[in-house]
């Protein structure tokens, strides 16, 4: 056993780091660091760069334009992106739809869509959740009725992240209402500019607009946009979800948040001394760091087993649970570290170009907001409760 990175791995890390240094504009990493709102152009700039470098589809098999990196390299790449304060890679096309098309798409679909994803031409959105069906996809209500050469789609999707930027959306729809819920689902690709598609913003508890409702009223979708076979969408959906879950442990993000926490606790004062010298507070930080240290190894173990071709079983669920808890704990301690400085909330501070004096230290502004925002991570991507159900049933046989 040896958890040191090899020379080759370190060299790869330098390469990624160097490239990010060269290509990522400083204004953009500054925006990310300050939690400012990113524009569509901000995301696209970074993803275009990746695309040009051939690194956008880093998960894909090499034959389809992927990188051919092993699991450790992928992990290093993810870490460096976070360390460089780059925008996140919008995952819906490249990380989610891509693998599904590669596995289940027709030749025509592959030839058309995959290069467009590789070249970052389409902005994809995900149409899974519905108001009555979050973690429980079996109770979907959006219908697609066979009308000969097209489907007529009616219904509503929700929690569509960045859907207001999207050109296309992949959806789960009901194509057969007369069978067991899981059996009648199909996987459909829909143009967002089709007549009858409407995007309505959802404002989240922190006052931000990131997610949306997408409404479909008599939307005509050509038959060729069906992925795989009719009524077998459930299989593709599950396949996709395993990709969604990978990396959701968010080790790199938590590591960076922990460093931020240490910085903030050195600057925050309690009774005239840095908060980090308060034995109670530093103990909470230390135990969080220990949890994260262990989780990093746990994650690497899983990643490396995957590299050897072992399918991650309960590990990905366990990592999802622990990853979200650790991440949330970091945002909690950041909030705690601020004391009363957590109170002020200046929404305009997150606009590009805002350069007034902040209230209190500059780092204080986004922290409480971020704490509330991060409550979502234990809910989405299959809530932590759902993950526990899966492990208990599939791995423990309970």
């Amino acid at each position, binding site marked *: 056993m040896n958890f040191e990175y090899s020379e080759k791995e370190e060299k790869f890390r330098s390469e990624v780091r160097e490239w990010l240094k060269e290509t990522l504009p400083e204004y953009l990493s500054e925006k990310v660091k300050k939690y400012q709102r990113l524009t569509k152009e901000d995301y696209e700039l970074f993803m275009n760069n990746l695309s040009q470098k051939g690194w956008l589809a880093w998960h894909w098999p090499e034959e389809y334009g992927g990188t051919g990196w092993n699991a450790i390299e992928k992990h290093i790449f993810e870490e460096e992106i976070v360390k460089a304060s780059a925008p996140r890679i919008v995952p819906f096309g490249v990380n989610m739809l891509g693998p599904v098309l590669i596995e289940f798409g027709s030749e025509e679909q592959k030839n058309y869509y995959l290069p467009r994803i590789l070249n970052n031409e389409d902005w994809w959105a995900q149409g899974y959740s519905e108001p009555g069906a979050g*973690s429980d996809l079996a*109770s979907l209500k959006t219908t697609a009725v066979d009308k000969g050469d097209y489907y007529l789609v009616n219904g509503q999707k929700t929690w569509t992240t960045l859907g207001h930027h999207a050109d296309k959306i992949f959806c789960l729809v009901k194509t057969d209402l007369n069978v067991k819920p899981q059996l009648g689902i199909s996987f459909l690709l829909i143009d967002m500019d089709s007549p009858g598609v409407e995007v309505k913003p959802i404002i989240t508890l922190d006052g931000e607009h990131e997610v949306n409702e997408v409404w479909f009223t008599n939307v005509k979708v050509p038959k060729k946009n069906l992925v795989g076979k009719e009524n077998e969408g459930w299989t593709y959906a599950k396949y996709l979800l395993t990709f969604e879950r990978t990396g959701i442990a968010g080790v790199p993000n938590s590591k960076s948040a922990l460093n931020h926490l240490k910085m903030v606790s050195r600057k925050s004062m309690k009774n005239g001394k840095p908060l980090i010298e308060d034995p109670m507070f530093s103990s909470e930080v230390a135990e969080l760091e220990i949890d994260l240290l262990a989780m990093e190894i746990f994650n690497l173990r899983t990643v490396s087993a995957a590299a050897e071709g072992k399918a991650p079983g309960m590990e990905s669920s366990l990592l999802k649970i622990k990853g979200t808890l650790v991440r949330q704990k970091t945002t909690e301690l950041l909030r705690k570290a601020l004391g009363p400085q957590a*109170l002020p*909330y200046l929404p305009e501070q997150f606009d590009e170009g805002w350069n007034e004096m902040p*209230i209190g230290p500059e780092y204080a502004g986004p922290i*409480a*907001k971020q704490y509330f925002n991060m409550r979502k991570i234990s809910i989405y991507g299959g809530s932590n409760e759902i993950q526990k159900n899966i492990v208990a049933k599939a791995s423990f046989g309970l």
Partner: protein
Amino acid sequence: MDFSLSEERKMLQETVARFFENNYKDINKRSKYLEMNDGFSRDFWKESANLGIISGLVSPNFGGLGGSGEDISIIFELIGKSLCIEPFLSSGLLSSTVLSSIENPKTELINQIVDGELLISFAHMEMNNRYEDHFVETKAFLENDNWKLNGSKSFVINGDSADKVIISARIDGEINDKNGIGLFLVDNNQIKNRSYNTIDGYRAAELNFENIEAELLCKNDLALECIIKTNSAGALALSAEAIGIMQVCFELTLDYLKTRKQFGKSIGAFQSIQHRMVDMMLEIEQVRSAVMLASSTFETNSSTRDKNVSAAKNLVGRVGKLIAEESIQLHGGIAMTWEYSVAHYAKRLIMIDHLMGDADYHRDRFKLLSLN
């Protein structure tokens, strides 16, 4: 021992409850109020005064109709239930507590507060003060027999709309000395303020002032005692407010669990969810008990008062986090949205831990008062 509320208090409870129910129930109404100029509704405030609710926070000795720990708790629990953002804390409670605790109480000003005609904010916190009673950097000095103040105050609730402000300032000694502090009354029109909303919807302000005129209210031991008492009153009020909020969070969650279906049954039918609801209720009852103790001993000696208030506020901090986070988690996505009320309750509940001493602060204060 007597666990029941007196008839008078039951009446107070009913009146206030009905008033809030009729005027503040709906989360959209609140949103409208907090977008107003002052961050609250002057009309509602005036009506509160007419109904005697502000008066319920003030002792009969100073023209009020209440003012005991129990009165404070009753009113603030209901404030919590409706998530009311009117200046009950800043003006109604904190400032009136200072003005009634000094050697020559300012009964006339208190009466104007009670009548809803005057707003006074309490400005003790500073940017680097972490809830400490005696950490004061703002300076006070005498110029031709007149007191002048120099410095800045932070996170002053309703500091923008207040007519007057009570400011703690250092007359003498080092920044962290217990002695040498004074409390001063100043006209707010002398002060430059920068106002903003807090993340839970309140209006607050940063105050900056240079050589402004001030009236000395009290100093040294008396001033420190007054600050401690005022902070304890605030911590008690916020603890009671938290109970109201927790109760609503619990009820909203329970309702949701009963109506929302997943995998063919209501979410509430899942045992792991049920057990978490029981844990929540258990801790809410614990908080309720601690606040009852703190209210009922609020008029005893200051060490009992502060010990029990700190017990309550510490527990509120710990349990508040549990209730806020569990309410969101058990709801799922819907709780992440601005338009569903539980998020606003959860935000206020969490931020209460950042006001008048957090769980850590009050645990340490309790420790000092209990172990020694």
